[in-house]
């Protein structure tokens, strides 16, 4: 029983990482109806930025926040420079750009920071906490993740800018008619998604170690989480992310074994898409034929 509880709790801890990446995916999906395949690679790149800043001597949290800010700017720049020109292009064009972006960021990361696996420091103590159920890092990273999710929620729910960003995603035409600069809202969405990815990268890197492909598996879990919760529902994506974390841990421990854990993500993706494409909390879209 104790082992089971341990698996659930540490599933929640990794689930928090999936939840933040899933939220980043959903934020861009809501505004553009495309999934940003490069979200994971962008987060990896941000994590390297943090490591570089730590290595030049900055304290952990200063480096962390600086990397979040830099990632935000990079996200905005990518939307303005790369996505803007293809905003009205057919779906396949956008998919092509996303795949290209994934390869470019991945190779750029390897070229700038090399491909060797690196250790990444955790700002939290490595002592076991909560009666040995969680490591200090798991507890700390879950706290950081929750803080991020809550502040994102508050931002969207209670600020003018957050409201304008939601409006621009739901109804760009009406948003322009009340004076919202829809193009910039999109760019801000990219910036926020990149910033959230940066946090997720820094929180997961101490566990999985840092290399240019660090996030590729995690992106798959996050995608599974986003689909499970509903790809157009931010709250659904967050809950889905946590659920996938728990399912992955329990499945890995008791059913399929650790080697086949990633299969669980694929099973979730395929099951959701075939059985309930709108996810648990997503909107069903009906159209007349």
């Amino acid at each position, binding site marked *: 029983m104790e082992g089971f509880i341990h698996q659930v709790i540490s599933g929640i801890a990794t689930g928090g990482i999936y939840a933040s990446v899933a939220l980043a995916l959903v934020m861009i999906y809501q505004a553009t109806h495309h999934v940003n395949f490069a979200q994971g690679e962008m987060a990896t790149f941000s994590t390297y930025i943090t490591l570089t800043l730590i290595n030049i001597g900055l304290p952990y949290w200063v480096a962390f926040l600086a990397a979040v800010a830099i990632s935000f700017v990079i996200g905005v720049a990518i939307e303005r420079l790369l996505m803007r020109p293809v905003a009205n292009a057919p779906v396949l064009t956008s998919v092509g750009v996303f795949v290209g972006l994934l390869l470019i960021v991945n190779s750029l990361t390897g070229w700038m920071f090399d491909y060797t696996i690196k250790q990444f420091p955790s700002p939290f103590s490595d002592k076991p906490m909560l009666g040995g159920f969680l490591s200090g890092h798991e507890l700390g990273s879950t706290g950081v993740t929750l803080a991020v999710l809550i502040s994102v929620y508050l931002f969207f729910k209670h600020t*003018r800018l957050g*409201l*304008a960003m*939601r*409006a621009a995603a*739901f*109804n760009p*035409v*009406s*948003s*322009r*008619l*009340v*004076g*919202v*600069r*829809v193009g910039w809202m999109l760019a801000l969405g990219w910036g926020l998604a990149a910033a959230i990815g940066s946090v997720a990268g820094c929180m997961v890197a101490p566990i999985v170690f840092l290399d240019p492909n660090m996030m590729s598996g995690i992106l798959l879990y996050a995608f599974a989480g986003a689909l499970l919760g509903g790809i157009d529902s931010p709250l659904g994506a967050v809950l889905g992310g946590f659920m996938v974390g728990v399912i992955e841990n329990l499945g890995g421990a008791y059913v399929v074994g650790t080697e086949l854990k990633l299969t669980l993500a694929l099973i979730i993706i395929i099951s959701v898409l075939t059985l309930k494409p709108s996810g648990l909390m997503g909107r069903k879209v009906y159209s007349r034929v």
Partner: protein
Amino acid sequence: MTALLDVKGLHAAYGETKVLHGLDFAVQQGGVTALLGANGAGKTTTLRAICGMVRTQGAIMLGGKPIEGMATEDIVRLGVAHVPDGRGTFMELTVEENMRLGAYTRPAREATADFERMFNYFPRLKERFRQQAGTLSGGEQQMLAISRALLLRPKLLLLDEPSFGLAPLIVKEIFGIMRRIRDEEGVSILLVEQNATIALAFADDAYLLETGRIVISGPASDISKDESIRRSYLGY
């Protein structure tokens, strides 16, 4: 009287399809101008052209300054509010959030005070304040759309078929309130309507559109009195 909106030689097209073929019309300061015409005459396109939502040629002057070719957001910020075809409700958001968006370009504190004025015109919005806007009836959504537009504190209000799909009694109610709004808000109105009777009773000037051209123009009272116009164009 000077013209707040002065349009000269307005052409508009969707891709290859030309919709407007050189319109000249004006909206007087503090006045109500009606654009009448059948389906497909180009009424909605005319409003979209003023807001920079379609590609146009010709001159559009707002308060003496050219606005053609500007981005929609910038035209809106100059004081042009558009109640679009289909009402443009943010269905997923609450009534309150819809109204906050209406006042998006203005300081938040001013907006909250203006909400009370809107509730005075449309008490039903107050009852529905926390409700999701998609659950409102058609008439309530029209009231919300008008409030959202007024919260911008516009100089010019563009109204696209406020009567569309509404029961006659509700149309009457809304036009009654529109009269109060014209008198109390000091806003000039360009109204597009298929319901000529109600539009001509409300407007000062009217233009009749047929396949992208203005065929008749003049004071609304003259047009509504003219037997032959009424019979051949307005059909009542």
